């Protein structure tokens, strides 16, 4: 009973907030709705018995990715009038995408209700005495180890690529030399002198 209630609660909020991502006029509000959608999707994952995935979803998407989104969106100086200007021009393309998506949805629901693929059994959690993390770990590091490492290499290449693309040496920049700063001692920088009256001193 409580599962059913929780499912409909999470599902409704996911759909509603996903709609609000598009309908919100302020892009920062859009990102906030997106975060709410992520959060409730994590709730749905919990209901499916995938608590590890749920936590990862929150940590990675809500905790890191969405923060960067928010960062970028806050920095942007968006002209709303310009955004809405091309509505008629993009209407045919938008309509095409909408029709394709709608057709896919109809086909998916139709195939599912026809019972062609036993999706329900796949979505349900595998009953086991092992915890989620152990199961994923055992699969990931034994059967799918090469795929896992390949994914790691792809990410590494992407990371190096991003660094190479953005890294440039700029002239005239004063950088901190931390070890030099740490080695600096009072006697290197200061001098204690005792000048006589009216004599002054040389620096």
């Amino acid at each position, binding site marked *: *009973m*409580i599962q059913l209630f929780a499912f409909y609660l999470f599902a409704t909020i996911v759909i509603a907030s996903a709609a609000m991502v598009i309908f919100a006029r*302020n892009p*920062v*509000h859009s990102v*906030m709705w997106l*975060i709410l959608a992520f959060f409730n999707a994590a709730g749905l994952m919990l209901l499916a018995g995938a*608590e*590890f995935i749920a*936590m*990862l979803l*929150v*940590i990675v998407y*809500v*905790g*890191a990715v969405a*923060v960067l989104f*928010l*960062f970028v969106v*806050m920095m942007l100086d968006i002209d709303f009038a310009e955004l809405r200007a091309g509505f008629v021009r993009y209407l045919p393309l938008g309509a095409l995408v909408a029709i394709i998506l709608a057709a896919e949805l109809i086909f998916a629901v139709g195939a599912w209700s026809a019972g062609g693929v036993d999706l329900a059994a796949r979505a349900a959690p595998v009953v086991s005495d092992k*915890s*989620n*993390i152990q199961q994923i770990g055992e699969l990931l590091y034994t059967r799918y180890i090469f795929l896992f490492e390949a994914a790691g290499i792809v990410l590494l290449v992407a990371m190096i690529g991003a660094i190479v693309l953005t890294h440039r040496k700029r002239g005239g920049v004063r950088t*901190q030399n*931390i070890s030099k700063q740490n080695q600096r001692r009072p006697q290197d920088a200061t001098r204690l002198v005792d000048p006589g009256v009216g004599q002054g001193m040389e620096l």
Partner: protein
Amino acid sequence: MTETFISWGMDPNWAWGVATICGILLIALPLMLAVAMIIYADRKIWAAIALRRGPNVVGPFGLLQSFADGLKVFLQETIVPSGANRGLFLIAPIITFTVALLAWAVIPFNSGAVLADINVGLLYILAISSLGVYGVILSGWASNSKYPFFSAMRASAQMISYEVSIGFILIGVVLFADSFNMNEIVKAQQGHGLGIVNAFGFNLLLFPLAVMFLISSLAETARAPFDLTEAESELVAGYQTEYSSMSFALFWLGEYANVLLMCTLNAVLFWGGWLPPIDWAPLYAVPGIIWLFAKILFFFFVFSWVKATVPRYRYDQLMRLGWKIFLPISLLWIFLISGYLMLTRYS
């Protein structure tokens, strides 16, 4: 607790619900009281180190100072700046406060005395603490004022940076404890240090991680010396500048609840949680919750002590410490620890 309610003749489902609500209240209400007292303690310790007297007027020894402040703040008017984004401006302190309370659900106060004994407890804490940054960013942006916005940018960069190294440090603990469950982590520490001390921190391999975690938790809660988000000489009061009355108080409470949470995490993850410090039978006669509170208070004292003595970091130093020192070392330590465990435990 559920069993007690069932034995009173309650329907099991209702008993579970009532027990959960009671558990939440049992954690949240004392926590609020603890936050009020800990603010007082913070000010007193700070004053003692600065050779001042600190709050000493309201109540005996000024003990009621926090409550007087709370009442004053409660009676003030909530001012929303005219240029502010009203909805987000009001939601931001609520997020900070709620998130600060949420993480306590998985903290074990004694053997089995935990509200939600889930097997991804540590990940839950990471997930919840990563939410804390939203309160700060939103308040900075919604205030529509430049100093809060600068502060929000600083805070988000700082929190994200240190969350990375905290994540890696926690993996070291998880590897040793062989579980993400907070209670299991505490139990794994029994007699761990040199065979007699109940703490991961006394393991030579984990001690550097314990030190890094303490420093990272200072940075994560934006306490001195990492309080660049509230650097009063540069940013007025940081992201809280435009806030007044209760909305300000929620930030204040949330901040200190977060500090307490980080102290608790230090105690639970590295220094034995509710276990007595030494694995010696008579010490177990003392309830575990008292050991835990003693450890939390000790770490809170360390936090206050650091606040009173260490000067504020520069922003580039802060980022360097996070990305160039803590991140590589904690990453290296994962390799070291897993290699050590493969040699000793799993071969």
